[in-house]
């Protein structure tokens, strides 16, 4: 059967990879955030184009239905990437807080200088 989980996975991954590269090209996604996505796409591409790898791994892990290992990889990756994103957000909100504080203090200083 041509239209199986592996071919769907390949088609999807290629489209996804293309989208990521396009976003970077249009400056809508920073390179550093694209790297993890590209890395994941390549891994998925290799796994879905070479079912032998998945089959062997599934055999080791005693997984009856090899393609479900593909989903497991995807899921684990998404969880890790989400964690990465919340780390990024934490850093950013810290920076935004400091920025707001500095702006407020500078505005006050400024108005004091104006009135002198």
């Amino acid at each position, binding site marked *: 059967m041509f239209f199986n989980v592996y071919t769907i996975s390949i088609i999807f991954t290629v489209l996804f990879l293309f989208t990521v590269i396009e976003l970077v090209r249009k400056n809508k996604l920073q390179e550093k955030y694209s790297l993890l996505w590209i890395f994941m796409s390549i891994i998925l591409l290799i796994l879905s184009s070479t079912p032998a790898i998945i089959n062997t791994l599934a055999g080791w892990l005693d997984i009856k239905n090899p393609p479900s290992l593909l989903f497991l990889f995807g899921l684990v990756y998404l969880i890790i990437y989400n964690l990465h994103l919340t780390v990024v957000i934490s850093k950013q909100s810290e920076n935004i807080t400091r920025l707001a504080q*500095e702006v*407020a203090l500078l505005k006050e200083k400024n108005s004091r200088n104006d009135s002198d």
Partner: protein
Amino acid sequence: MKVLVIIPAYNEEASIGAVIKSIKHHAPEAQIIVINDGSRDNTHIEAAKAGATVINLPFNLGIGGAMQTGYLYAKANDFDAAIQVDGDGQHDPAYIHKLLKPIESGSASVVIGSRYVYETSYKSSFSRRTGMIFFSILVKILTGQTIKDTTSGFRAVNRDVIEYFAEHYPTDYPEVDVLVKLHKKKFRVIEVPVEMQQRQGGKSSITPLRSIYYMIKVSLSLLVGALRSNEC
């Protein structure tokens, strides 16, 4: 001793003026700074009218971010001591000198104005009291120190703590969290008894359901924070 009074304020137009006037009356030598945390009412106008310096944050940062702005100001302008007072009128400025005394004599780095050191006429709700006892026990476990009024925002600190707070101040649920941090940094924290008043205006953010949610959040934050490395 150069003293800064920091008042974090979010929508406190009804009470802020009276609070500032009372501070001016009881501690005329202190400079008063109001951190307007993105209020949507006329807090900044009322505060300026009463004669305080007003710092307007561009948007709401929450109590932690607002408090820290005050400490950044204190650090930049070389204050020797800073004292936080709530903008809702529940902290009586008559106690400012009582809080500052241990700072001035160098016997403590942080002085907390406490409702519970011994019986005062302050009446608190059941959920609030439960929370107090709970946090008190938690702080006791984490620091070994007995602090009765862990959530009191009526606090005075010395220059060293000003510098520390300017760099490190928790964003969320700061009152209890800060106690554990101060302990880690080996600052000496003491409590002095004060009477607290019922708030004069606005409304409290505390409801029974919210206080349970608050308790869980603070506890988790404290326990995770206890694992944190010492640089923070």
